[in-house]
Structure formats: C-alpha cells, structure tokens
C-alpha cells in the first residue's frame, strides 16, 4: 500500500473519530471552542506519533521475537502512560512556551483511546516503521481536523435556541453523525 493512500485514508476516508469511533471522549469533551480544540489536536499528534514509534519498537524488538505478543496491551498502556509523564516533564524544563500551550491537555491523553488504538492498529495492520510514523501523524491530523470542524459547529450551536433536553451532548452527537455522513463521501475516492 502506498504512503499517499495511508495519508488520505487516515485523515479523511477512515477518520479515527468519525468512522472508527476512537477518541470520542476528548472529542466530545474538548471541542467546545476552536482554540482549545487546536491545542488538544496538536498534543494528540505529538504524543500519538511518539507512542506509535515506541510501541512499534517494543512490540517488534522485545515482545514478538520472544513469543510475548500476549503482553501487548499491558506493555503498550504502561508505555503510553509513562511516555505522557515523560513528555510533560521534558516540556516543562526545556520548552515552557510549548508546555503552556499543550500542558493542560497532556494528562487527558493517557486515557485517550485513540493513542492506544493507533498503537494496536499499527501492529494489526503489519505496518513497517515508516508506515507506522506516517499513519500516526495522519491519524493525528485527522483527529485535529474533526475536532476543529466540530468546535466550529458547536460555537454556532451555542447561539441556537433549543430545548434543554437536546442541548449539550445529544445535539453534539447528532451533529457528529451528520459530519460523519459527510466524511463518508471520501470513501469512494480510494480503493486500497
């Protein structure tokens, strides 16, 4: 499979949030304003790529050759949790500006299932390290894109007069459904 197809599919046709249902919690939680959704998106791209590389190496060097593939879930989640802590500490010391921008989103990322999801999907799809990196970055961009569009929709929904029962999560989910329908249109373009 060529890299361009991976990029296109990961960002648009098989968007991580809108068609794979990963990372829904931060998607619904942090998409109230465009500004915060961009911050969250950047943090996700960063951690997703880093964790995809590390988990790929761990799986292919430490686990698979020794028949320990069954320890995958436990190893990956520990690595991701540790990695997020590490990134937080390093950013705090070396790059306070970036830390201020991304710092508040980092703790939320450990329980973002998109991160663990991408790590597992890379292994299941049998990607090599280059494909893994490309896939992780593209998926992160796809996540950010979906977040920013949703935030734009929600900023306008705030101003709409509607019943209290549907305000909030209910109307957000229905909007996400319509957005997901729009993204489905991309599916026909690529046949893998």
């Amino acid at each position: 499979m060529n890299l361009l197809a991976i990029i296109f599919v990961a960002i648009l046709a098989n968007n991580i949030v809108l068609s794979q249902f990963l990372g829904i919690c931060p998607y619904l939680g942090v998409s109230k304003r465009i500004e915060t959704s961009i911050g969250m998106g950047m943090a996700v791209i960063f951690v997703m790529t880093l964790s995809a590389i590390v988990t790929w190496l761990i799986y292919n060097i430490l686990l698979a050759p020794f028949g320990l593939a069954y320890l995958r879930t436990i190893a990956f989640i520990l690595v991701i949790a540790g990695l997020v802590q590490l990134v937080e500490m390093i950013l705090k010391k070396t790059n306070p500006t970036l830390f201020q921008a991304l710092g508040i989103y980092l703790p939320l990322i450990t329980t973002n299932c998109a991160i663990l999801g991408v790590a597992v999907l890379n292994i299941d799809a049998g990607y090599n390290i280059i494909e893994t990196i490309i896939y992780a970055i593209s998926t992160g961009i796809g996540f950010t894109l979906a977040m920013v569009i949703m935030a734009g929709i929600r900023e306008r929904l705030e101003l709409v007069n509607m019943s209290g029962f549907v305000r909030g999560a209910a109307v957000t989910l229905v909007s996400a459904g319509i957005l997901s329908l729009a993204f489905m249109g991309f599916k026909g373009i690529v046949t893998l």
Partner: protein
Amino acid sequence: MRESGLRMALTLLIIGAICGGLLSVVNGVTAPVIEERAMEDFLTAMKGFFPEVADYEANEVENEVFYSCVDDSGELIGIVGQVKANGYGGAISYDLAVNAAGDIIGIRISSHGETPGIGDVITTDEFQDRVIGLNYADPISAGVDVDTVSGASISTGGMINSIRRVMTIIGDNFLAN
C-alpha cells in the same frame, strides 16, 4: 522517604510479576485452543476445496503461508493460500484456493472487520462468484474483468487487488512448472 520509594517500587514490581505470571498461565491454556481451532477450521476448508486431498506441504512466501495440496498419488491438485487483504475495517484474512490449472475454485473469509450489511458482502456468493473461475493469467482487475459491489467498493476492491497479488505469487512460485 527512601523507604517509601522502595516500597512503591516493590509494590509495583510484585503486582507486575503476579500479573505477568497470571497472563502466561492463561495464555498457556488459551493459545493451543486458538491455534487448534484455527487449524481445524482451515483443514475443514481445505477438504471442502479439494475433497481428494491426501497430504499437504506448507510454504511461506512474503509472510503468508501457502499450502500445496496433493492427492493419493502425490500429484499436485491445488494451492490454498492463507492470506490477507486490506478492507474498510482493517485486515481481511482469507483462504484462496487455486487448482493445478491456475483457476480460482474457492474463497473462505476467516476473519474481517467489515461493516455488517455493507462490506460483509465479501463473505457472500454474490461477490465470491465474481472471482471464482478466473485464472492467474486473467487481468483480475476491478472494473476490467471483475466488478466491485456498489456501496462496498473499498471492501470488495481491496479483496480484488489482494487476490490479484496472491494469484501472481501462486503463479510465480507454485505453478511455474
């Protein structure tokens, strides 16, 4: 302070060791069951494709396993490949059976993540009949001699591309002589 640090590390270590031990025990129980079940399913499928199969030999090409099936007299009757395609919901694992003349005689989807009611059309005769009977010398190309199923073009297109790839491997490696 030092003592509590030690205690923390020790607690984690003990929990980690117990968890790891527990998992290896469960894995020891389930792994043979999983393998046996997969092999059993596969052998049943192979018998379905080639009822006269007496023996088989497994060969690995590019990380996929191909079984050369022979009859009582040791004559090659066909190849079954345990292969993968890229679908809409991740990898599709399937077996492709090809007879000694290079014609596709059967497909068995062993696992897939395609959408029920849409992409899972790949498991039906409606789709599989479009490929069965084609020879490795045919183009086997979406839109040329095989049509994708509308609404499920990613799942079916992925299968067609993969079948082309697998047929080339089988043609080059197993049917050359």
